[in-house]
Protein backbone atom coordinates (compact mmCIF):
# COMPACT_ATOMS: atom_id res chain seq x y z
CA UNK A 1 0.00 0.00 0.00
CA UNK A 2 1.33 3.41 -0.93
CA UNK A 3 0.97 6.35 1.42
CA UNK A 4 -0.56 9.50 0.01
CA UNK A 5 1.23 12.81 -0.24
CA UNK A 6 1.71 13.90 3.35
CA UNK A 7 4.38 16.57 2.93
CA UNK A 8 2.29 19.40 4.29
CA UNK A 9 1.91 17.85 7.72
CA UNK A 10 3.11 20.15 10.49
CA UNK A 11 5.15 18.36 13.11
CA UNK A 12 5.18 19.86 16.60
CA UNK A 13 8.72 19.66 17.96
CA UNK A 14 7.61 20.48 21.49
CA UNK A 15 5.09 17.63 21.46
CA UNK A 16 7.72 15.32 20.04
CA UNK A 17 10.11 16.13 22.85
CA UNK A 18 7.29 15.47 25.33
CA UNK A 19 7.08 11.92 23.85
CA UNK A 20 3.72 12.54 22.24
CA UNK A 21 2.98 9.55 20.01
CA UNK A 22 0.62 11.50 17.76
CA UNK A 23 3.40 13.94 16.97
CA UNK A 24 5.72 11.02 16.25
CA UNK A 25 3.11 9.53 13.92
CA UNK A 26 2.99 12.89 12.08
CA UNK A 27 6.77 12.85 11.81
CA UNK A 28 6.63 9.32 10.47
CA UNK A 29 3.94 10.13 7.92
CA UNK A 30 5.80 13.17 6.66
CA UNK A 31 9.34 11.84 6.41
CA UNK A 32 9.50 8.02 6.43
CA UNK A 33 9.23 7.77 2.63
CA UNK A 34 12.00 10.33 2.00
CA UNK A 35 14.22 8.62 4.56
CA UNK A 36 13.58 5.15 3.16
CA UNK A 37 14.53 6.36 -0.30
CA UNK A 38 17.89 7.66 0.89
CA UNK A 39 18.56 4.54 2.99
CA UNK A 40 17.70 2.36 -0.02
CA UNK A 41 20.24 4.15 -2.16
CA UNK A 42 22.93 3.64 0.47
CA UNK A 43 22.31 -0.06 1.24
CA UNK A 44 20.83 -1.06 -2.15
CA UNK A 45 18.66 -3.79 -0.65
CA UNK A 46 14.94 -3.43 0.08
CA UNK A 47 14.79 -5.71 3.11
CA UNK A 48 17.90 -4.28 4.76
CA UNK A 49 16.70 -0.74 4.04
CA UNK A 50 13.41 -1.42 5.81
CA UNK A 51 15.28 -2.81 8.83
CA UNK A 52 17.53 0.24 8.90
CA UNK A 53 14.50 2.56 8.67
CA UNK A 54 12.82 0.80 11.56
CA UNK A 55 15.96 0.87 13.72
CA UNK A 56 16.59 4.53 12.89
CA UNK A 57 13.05 5.59 13.73
CA UNK A 58 13.25 3.83 17.10
CA UNK A 59 16.51 5.68 17.81
CA UNK A 60 14.82 8.92 16.80
CA UNK A 61 11.87 8.26 19.11
CA UNK A 62 14.13 7.41 22.07
CA UNK A 63 16.33 10.47 21.53
CA UNK A 64 13.89 13.25 20.68
CA UNK A 65 14.96 15.05 23.86
CA UNK A 66 18.51 15.26 22.46
CA UNK A 67 17.45 17.02 19.27
CA UNK A 68 18.61 20.66 19.30
CA UNK A 69 16.46 22.96 17.17
CA UNK A 70 19.19 25.60 17.18
CA UNK A 71 21.66 23.29 15.47
CA UNK A 72 19.68 21.85 12.59
CA UNK A 73 16.24 21.19 11.18
CA UNK A 74 14.52 18.03 12.40
CA UNK A 75 14.93 16.47 8.97
CA UNK A 76 18.71 17.00 8.88
CA UNK A 77 18.95 15.46 12.35
CA UNK A 78 16.87 12.43 11.39
CA UNK A 79 18.72 12.02 8.13
CA UNK A 80 22.06 11.91 9.95
CA UNK A 81 20.75 9.16 12.23
CA UNK A 82 19.46 7.18 9.23
CA UNK A 83 22.69 7.64 7.28
CA UNK A 84 24.85 6.50 10.20
CA UNK A 85 22.60 3.52 10.88
CA UNK A 86 22.67 2.56 7.18
CA UNK A 87 26.45 2.83 6.98
CA UNK A 88 26.79 0.78 10.19
CA UNK A 89 24.49 -1.88 8.74
CA UNK A 90 26.64 -2.01 5.61
CA UNK A 91 29.82 -2.31 7.68
CA UNK A 92 28.33 -5.25 9.56
CA UNK A 93 27.80 -6.89 6.19
CA UNK A 94 31.38 -6.07 5.22
CA UNK A 95 30.56 -3.69 2.40
CA UNK A 96 30.66 0.06 1.97
CA UNK A 97 28.40 2.59 0.21
CA UNK A 98 28.63 2.25 -3.54
CA UNK A 99 27.21 4.23 -6.37
CA UNK A 100 23.85 2.86 -7.45
CA UNK A 101 23.03 1.83 -10.99
CA UNK A 102 20.15 4.29 -11.05
CA UNK A 103 22.72 7.08 -11.14
CA UNK A 104 23.99 5.66 -14.40
CA UNK A 105 20.43 5.49 -15.69
CA UNK A 106 20.11 9.17 -15.07
CA UNK A 107 23.26 9.84 -16.94
CA UNK A 108 22.10 8.13 -20.14
CA UNK A 109 18.55 9.44 -20.05
CA UNK A 110 17.96 12.36 -22.37
CA UNK A 111 15.92 14.40 -19.92
CA UNK A 112 17.49 15.37 -16.63
CA UNK A 113 15.02 13.43 -14.58
CA UNK A 114 15.92 10.59 -12.29
CA UNK A 115 14.83 7.07 -13.13
CA UNK A 116 14.55 5.58 -9.75
CA UNK A 117 14.06 1.93 -8.91
CA UNK A 118 11.53 2.91 -6.26
CA UNK A 119 8.08 4.39 -6.50
CA UNK A 120 8.12 8.14 -6.58
CA UNK A 121 5.31 10.01 -4.94
CA UNK A 122 4.21 13.53 -5.71
CA UNK A 123 7.30 14.27 -7.74
CA UNK A 124 7.70 17.91 -8.56
CA UNK A 125 11.11 16.99 -9.92
CA UNK A 126 13.15 19.99 -8.98
CA UNK A 127 16.25 18.24 -10.35
CA UNK A 128 15.09 19.22 -13.84
CA UNK A 129 16.14 22.78 -13.03
CA UNK A 130 19.74 21.62 -12.68
CA UNK A 131 22.31 20.71 -15.31
CA UNK A 132 22.96 16.98 -15.66
CA UNK A 133 26.37 17.42 -14.03
CA UNK A 134 24.93 19.24 -11.01
CA UNK A 135 22.13 16.72 -10.67
CA UNK A 136 24.55 13.78 -10.76
CA UNK A 137 26.89 15.31 -8.22
CA UNK A 138 24.05 16.02 -5.78
CA UNK A 139 22.54 12.57 -6.21
CA UNK A 140 25.86 10.79 -5.72
CA UNK A 141 26.56 12.57 -2.45
CA UNK A 142 23.07 13.17 -1.10
CA UNK A 143 21.15 10.11 -2.18
CA UNK A 144 23.93 7.54 -2.35
CA UNK A 145 25.83 8.66 0.71
CA UNK A 146 29.20 8.88 -1.08
CA UNK A 147 31.87 11.20 0.26
CA UNK A 148 32.78 14.11 -1.99
CA UNK A 149 36.09 12.35 -2.71
CA UNK A 150 34.40 9.09 -3.76
CA UNK A 151 31.89 10.97 -5.90
CA UNK A 152 34.73 12.87 -7.62
CA UNK A 153 36.51 9.62 -8.35
CA UNK A 154 33.35 7.95 -9.59
CA UNK A 155 32.37 10.81 -11.88
CA UNK A 156 36.02 11.20 -12.87
CA UNK A 157 36.30 14.91 -12.15
CA UNK A 158 38.45 16.85 -9.65
CA UNK A 159 37.17 17.28 -6.10
CA UNK A 160 36.87 21.04 -6.57
CA UNK A 161 34.59 20.51 -9.54
CA UNK A 162 32.28 18.25 -7.51
CA UNK A 163 32.08 20.87 -4.78
CA UNK A 164 31.30 23.62 -7.29
CA UNK A 165 28.61 21.53 -9.02
CA UNK A 166 26.95 20.74 -5.70
CA UNK A 167 27.11 24.35 -4.60
CA UNK A 168 25.76 25.72 -7.89
CA UNK A 169 23.05 23.06 -7.93
CA UNK A 170 22.04 24.06 -4.43
CA UNK A 171 21.96 27.73 -5.37
CA UNK A 172 19.18 26.78 -7.80
CA UNK A 173 17.45 24.40 -5.40
CA UNK A 174 17.45 27.05 -2.66
CA UNK A 175 15.44 29.27 -4.99
CA UNK A 176 13.07 26.42 -5.88
CA UNK A 177 12.41 25.63 -2.23
CA UNK A 178 12.67 29.16 -0.81
CA UNK A 179 10.13 29.57 1.94
Amino acid at each position, binding site marked *: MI*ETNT*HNIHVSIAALKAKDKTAFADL*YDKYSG*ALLNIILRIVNNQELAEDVL*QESLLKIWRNTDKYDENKS*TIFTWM*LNICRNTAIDALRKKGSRPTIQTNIENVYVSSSHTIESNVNLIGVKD*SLKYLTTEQSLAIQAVYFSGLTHEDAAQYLNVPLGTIKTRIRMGLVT*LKKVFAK
Partner: protein
Amino acid sequence: MNVNDYILSGILEQYVLGDVSPQEKQEVECLSHIYPEIKEELTKVEFALEGLALEYSASVPTHIKQNIFDLINSEETINTSQTTSNTKVISLVDSTDTKNSTSKSNINKYLIAASVLLIASISSLYLFLNSTFQAKELALNSKIESLNLDKVQIEESYKNQLASLSIENNKIFVLQANNKAPGKTMIVAWNKVTGHVYVNNIQLPSTPTDKQYQLWALKDGKPIDLGVFEVNTNLQHMKNVQGAQAFAVTLEQKGGSPTPNLEQLYAIINI
Protein backbone atom coordinates in the same frame (compact mmCIF):
# COMPACT_ATOMS: atom_id res chain seq x y z
CA MET B 1 33.74 39.85 3.56
CA ASN B 2 35.04 36.84 5.40
CA VAL B 3 31.61 35.45 6.24
CA ASN B 4 30.69 35.47 2.56
CA ASP B 5 33.90 33.67 1.68
CA TYR B 6 33.07 31.06 4.26
CA ILE B 7 29.58 30.60 2.84
CA LEU B 8 30.98 30.40 -0.71
CA SER B 9 33.56 27.78 0.27
CA GLY B 10 30.86 25.08 0.06
CA ILE B 11 31.43 23.87 3.62
CA LEU B 12 27.76 24.40 4.60
CA GLU B 13 26.61 22.14 1.77
CA GLN B 14 29.15 19.51 2.82
CA TYR B 15 27.93 19.81 6.40
CA VAL B 16 24.29 19.22 5.48
CA LEU B 17 25.33 16.39 3.15
CA GLY B 18 27.05 14.75 6.12
CA ASP B 19 30.53 14.83 4.57
CA VAL B 20 32.59 16.78 7.12
CA SER B 21 35.17 15.81 9.73
CA PRO B 22 34.21 16.17 13.42
CA GLN B 23 36.42 19.31 13.52
CA GLU B 24 34.64 20.89 10.57
CA LYS B 25 31.30 19.90 12.08
CA GLN B 26 32.12 21.77 15.29
CA GLU B 27 33.38 24.72 13.28
CA VAL B 28 30.15 25.03 11.28
CA GLU B 29 28.01 24.69 14.41
CA CYS B 30 30.09 27.31 16.22
CA LEU B 31 30.12 29.82 13.39
CA SER B 32 26.46 29.41 12.53
CA HIS B 33 25.69 30.04 16.18
CA ILE B 34 27.66 33.30 16.07
CA TYR B 35 26.98 34.65 12.57
CA PRO B 36 23.26 34.93 11.70
CA GLU B 37 24.18 35.11 7.98
CA ILE B 38 25.80 31.68 8.16
CA LYS B 39 22.86 30.26 10.12
CA GLU B 40 20.39 31.64 7.59
CA GLU B 41 22.35 30.18 4.68
CA LEU B 42 22.64 26.85 6.46
CA THR B 43 18.88 26.68 7.02
CA LYS B 44 18.25 27.49 3.34
CA VAL B 45 20.51 24.62 2.28
CA GLU B 46 18.75 22.32 4.74
CA PHE B 47 15.30 23.25 3.43
CA ALA B 48 16.42 22.83 -0.20
CA LEU B 49 17.76 19.35 0.48
CA GLU B 50 14.70 18.44 2.56
CA GLY B 51 12.46 19.56 -0.29
CA LEU B 52 14.45 17.46 -2.71
CA ALA B 53 14.32 14.42 -0.44
CA LEU B 54 10.55 14.74 0.00
CA GLU B 55 10.12 14.76 -3.78
CA TYR B 56 11.87 11.43 -3.99
CA SER B 57 10.02 9.54 -1.30
CA ALA B 58 9.91 5.75 -1.52
CA SER B 59 6.71 3.94 -0.63
CA VAL B 60 6.95 2.51 2.85
CA PRO B 61 5.14 -0.81 3.55
CA THR B 62 2.44 -0.17 6.16
CA HIS B 63 3.65 -2.94 8.48
CA ILE B 64 6.77 -0.90 9.32
CA LYS B 65 4.75 1.80 11.02
CA GLN B 66 2.80 -0.91 12.86
CA ASN B 67 6.06 -2.60 13.99
CA ILE B 68 7.55 0.65 15.26
CA PHE B 69 4.49 1.62 17.27
CA ASP B 70 4.16 -1.93 18.65
CA LEU B 71 7.77 -1.72 19.86
CA ILE B 72 7.25 1.73 21.37
CA ASN B 73 4.13 0.55 23.18
CA SER B 74 5.80 -2.60 24.52
CA GLU B 75 8.77 -0.56 25.80
CA GLU B 76 6.30 1.57 27.74
CA THR B 77 4.67 -1.52 29.26
CA ILE B 78 8.06 -2.88 30.38
CA ASN B 79 8.94 0.43 32.01
CA THR B 80 5.63 0.57 33.88
CA SER B 81 5.88 -3.02 35.20
CA GLN B 82 9.44 -2.36 36.38
CA THR B 83 8.22 0.54 38.47
CA THR B 84 5.52 -1.65 40.08
CA SER B 85 7.95 -4.43 41.05
CA ASN B 86 10.30 -1.89 42.65
CA THR B 87 7.52 -0.78 44.97
CA LYS B 88 6.93 -4.38 46.05
CA VAL B 89 10.59 -4.86 47.03
CA ILE B 90 10.44 -1.85 49.34
CA SER B 91 7.37 -3.15 51.23
CA LEU B 92 9.03 -6.57 51.70
CA VAL B 93 12.00 -4.97 53.47
CA ASP B 94 9.64 -3.09 55.80
CA SER B 95 7.87 -6.26 57.02
CA THR B 96 11.19 -8.09 57.64
CA ASP B 97 12.21 -5.18 59.84
CA THR B 98 9.29 -5.72 62.28
CA LYS B 99 9.93 -9.48 62.54
CA ASN B 100 13.55 -8.99 63.58
CA SER B 101 12.85 -6.40 66.29
CA THR B 102 13.02 -8.95 69.20
CA SER B 103 16.44 -10.35 68.29
CA LYS B 104 17.67 -6.80 67.70
CA SER B 105 16.92 -5.72 71.28
CA ASN B 106 19.11 -8.65 72.54
CA ILE B 107 21.99 -7.49 70.37
CA ASN B 108 21.57 -3.97 71.78
CA LYS B 109 22.09 -5.26 75.36
CA TYR B 110 25.43 -6.85 74.41
CA LEU B 111 26.47 -3.66 72.63
CA ILE B 112 25.77 -1.53 75.72
CA ALA B 113 27.78 -3.89 77.96
CA ALA B 114 30.72 -3.85 75.54
CA SER B 115 30.64 -0.04 75.37
CA VAL B 116 30.78 0.30 79.17
CA LEU B 117 33.86 -1.96 79.28
CA LEU B 118 35.54 0.01 76.52
CA ILE B 119 34.93 3.38 78.24
CA ALA B 120 36.37 2.00 81.52
CA SER B 121 39.59 0.80 79.86
CA ILE B 122 40.05 4.09 77.98
CA SER B 123 39.63 6.09 81.25
CA SER B 124 42.34 4.13 83.09
CA LEU B 125 44.66 4.37 80.10
CA TYR B 126 44.07 8.16 80.02
CA LEU B 127 44.93 8.56 83.71
CA PHE B 128 48.09 6.55 83.22
CA LEU B 129 49.36 8.50 80.25
CA ASN B 130 48.08 11.95 81.22
CA SER B 131 51.34 13.26 82.67
CA THR B 132 53.33 12.27 79.58
CA PHE B 133 50.74 13.95 77.35
CA GLN B 134 50.89 17.22 79.26
CA ALA B 135 54.61 17.59 78.57
CA LYS B 136 54.20 16.77 74.92
CA GLU B 137 51.23 19.14 74.60
CA LEU B 138 53.37 22.12 75.60
CA ALA B 139 55.92 21.32 72.93
CA LEU B 140 53.21 20.84 70.33
CA ASN B 141 51.51 24.12 71.20
CA SER B 142 54.65 26.10 70.52
CA LYS B 143 55.08 24.32 67.21
CA ILE B 144 51.51 25.09 66.21
CA GLU B 145 52.06 28.75 67.02
CA SER B 146 55.07 29.00 64.75
CA LEU B 147 53.22 27.14 61.99
CA ASN B 148 50.32 29.57 62.33
CA LEU B 149 52.71 32.45 61.79
CA ASP B 150 54.05 30.80 58.63
CA LYS B 151 50.52 30.22 57.43
CA VAL B 152 49.58 33.88 57.82
CA GLN B 153 52.65 34.93 55.88
CA ILE B 154 51.96 32.44 53.07
CA GLU B 155 48.33 33.48 52.92
CA GLU B 156 49.32 37.11 52.68
CA SER B 157 51.80 36.55 49.87
CA TYR B 158 49.38 34.51 47.77
CA LYS B 159 46.28 36.56 48.43
CA ASN B 160 46.48 38.71 45.31
CA GLN B 161 47.38 35.83 43.05
CA LEU B 162 44.54 33.75 44.43
CA ALA B 163 42.11 36.60 43.79
CA SER B 164 43.09 36.87 40.14
CA LEU B 165 43.24 33.11 39.62
CA SER B 166 40.19 31.99 41.57
CA ILE B 167 38.95 28.71 40.15
CA GLU B 168 35.39 29.92 40.01
CA ASN B 169 36.16 32.80 37.67
CA ASN B 170 38.73 31.11 35.45
CA LYS B 171 37.73 28.94 32.56
CA ILE B 172 40.17 26.75 30.71
CA PHE B 173 39.42 25.88 27.08
CA VAL B 174 41.23 23.26 25.02
CA LEU B 175 41.07 24.36 21.39
CA GLN B 176 41.31 21.52 18.89
CA ALA B 177 42.85 22.51 15.58
CA ASN B 178 40.89 21.69 12.42
CA ASN B 179 42.28 19.80 9.42
CA LYS B 180 44.96 22.47 8.92
CA ALA B 181 46.78 20.94 11.91
CA PRO B 182 45.00 17.69 12.73
CA GLY B 183 45.27 16.47 16.32
CA LYS B 184 46.99 19.64 17.59
CA THR B 185 45.63 21.57 20.53
CA MET B 186 46.24 24.72 22.54
CA ILE B 187 44.92 26.08 25.80
CA VAL B 188 43.08 29.35 26.32
CA ALA B 189 42.43 30.47 29.90
CA TRP B 190 39.94 33.25 30.43
CA ASN B 191 38.89 35.01 33.61
CA LYS B 192 35.28 36.00 33.13
CA VAL B 193 35.44 38.66 35.87
CA THR B 194 38.73 40.40 35.17
CA GLY B 195 38.70 39.60 31.44
CA HIS B 196 42.31 38.34 31.52
CA VAL B 197 43.17 35.93 28.69
CA TYR B 198 46.18 33.62 28.56
CA VAL B 199 47.31 31.10 25.96
CA ASN B 200 49.49 28.11 26.77
CA ASN B 201 50.68 24.67 25.52
CA ILE B 202 50.48 25.74 21.90
CA GLN B 203 51.04 22.73 19.68
CA LEU B 204 50.20 24.51 16.41
CA PRO B 205 52.82 24.20 13.65
CA SER B 206 55.54 26.88 13.42
CA THR B 207 54.61 29.85 11.26
CA PRO B 208 56.54 31.31 8.30
CA THR B 209 58.53 34.42 9.35
CA ASP B 210 55.99 36.80 7.81
CA LYS B 211 52.99 35.21 9.59
CA GLN B 212 51.71 34.92 13.14
CA TYR B 213 48.78 33.23 14.82
CA GLN B 214 46.15 35.64 16.08
CA LEU B 215 43.60 34.99 18.81
CA TRP B 216 40.05 36.32 18.45
CA ALA B 217 37.08 36.45 20.71
CA LEU B 218 33.65 36.47 19.10
CA LYS B 219 30.94 38.53 20.72
CA ASP B 220 27.48 39.24 19.26
CA GLY B 221 28.71 38.17 15.85
CA LYS B 222 31.71 40.52 15.90
CA PRO B 223 35.33 39.35 16.06
CA ILE B 224 37.49 41.06 18.72
CA ASP B 225 41.28 41.06 18.29
CA LEU B 226 43.05 39.58 21.32
CA GLY B 227 46.53 39.89 19.86
CA VAL B 228 49.09 37.64 18.19
CA PHE B 229 51.07 34.89 19.88
CA GLU B 230 54.16 32.75 19.29
CA VAL B 231 54.16 28.97 19.25
CA ASN B 232 57.40 28.37 21.15
CA THR B 233 56.80 30.19 24.44
CA ASN B 234 54.95 29.37 27.60
CA LEU B 235 51.97 31.15 29.15
CA GLN B 236 51.35 34.36 27.17
CA HIS B 237 49.11 37.15 28.38
CA MET B 238 46.72 38.32 25.64
CA LYS B 239 44.42 41.35 25.48
CA ASN B 240 41.51 41.41 27.95
CA VAL B 241 37.98 40.66 26.83
CA GLN B 242 34.56 40.70 28.50
CA GLY B 243 31.51 38.73 27.43
CA ALA B 244 33.24 36.53 24.86
CA GLN B 245 31.02 33.85 23.24
CA ALA B 246 33.74 31.97 21.38
CA PHE B 247 37.50 31.92 20.87
CA ALA B 248 39.08 31.41 17.48
CA VAL B 249 42.61 31.24 16.07
CA THR B 250 43.59 32.31 12.57
CA LEU B 251 46.92 32.61 10.76
CA GLU B 252 47.52 36.25 9.84
CA GLN B 253 50.27 38.51 8.58
CA LYS B 254 52.98 39.30 11.14
CA GLY B 255 51.63 41.72 13.74
CA GLY B 256 48.03 40.66 13.18
CA SER B 257 45.08 41.83 11.09
CA PRO B 258 42.11 44.06 11.92
CA THR B 259 39.64 41.32 10.89
CA PRO B 260 40.10 37.54 10.89
CA ASN B 261 40.75 35.64 7.68
CA LEU B 262 38.31 32.71 7.98
CA GLU B 263 40.07 30.87 5.16
CA GLN B 264 43.00 30.57 7.56
CA LEU B 265 40.95 29.50 10.57
CA TYR B 266 42.85 26.93 12.65
CA ALA B 267 40.61 26.40 15.64
CA ILE B 268 37.40 27.65 17.18
CA ILE B 269 35.54 26.85 20.37
CA ASN B 270 32.16 27.95 21.59
CA ILE B 271 31.81 29.11 25.18
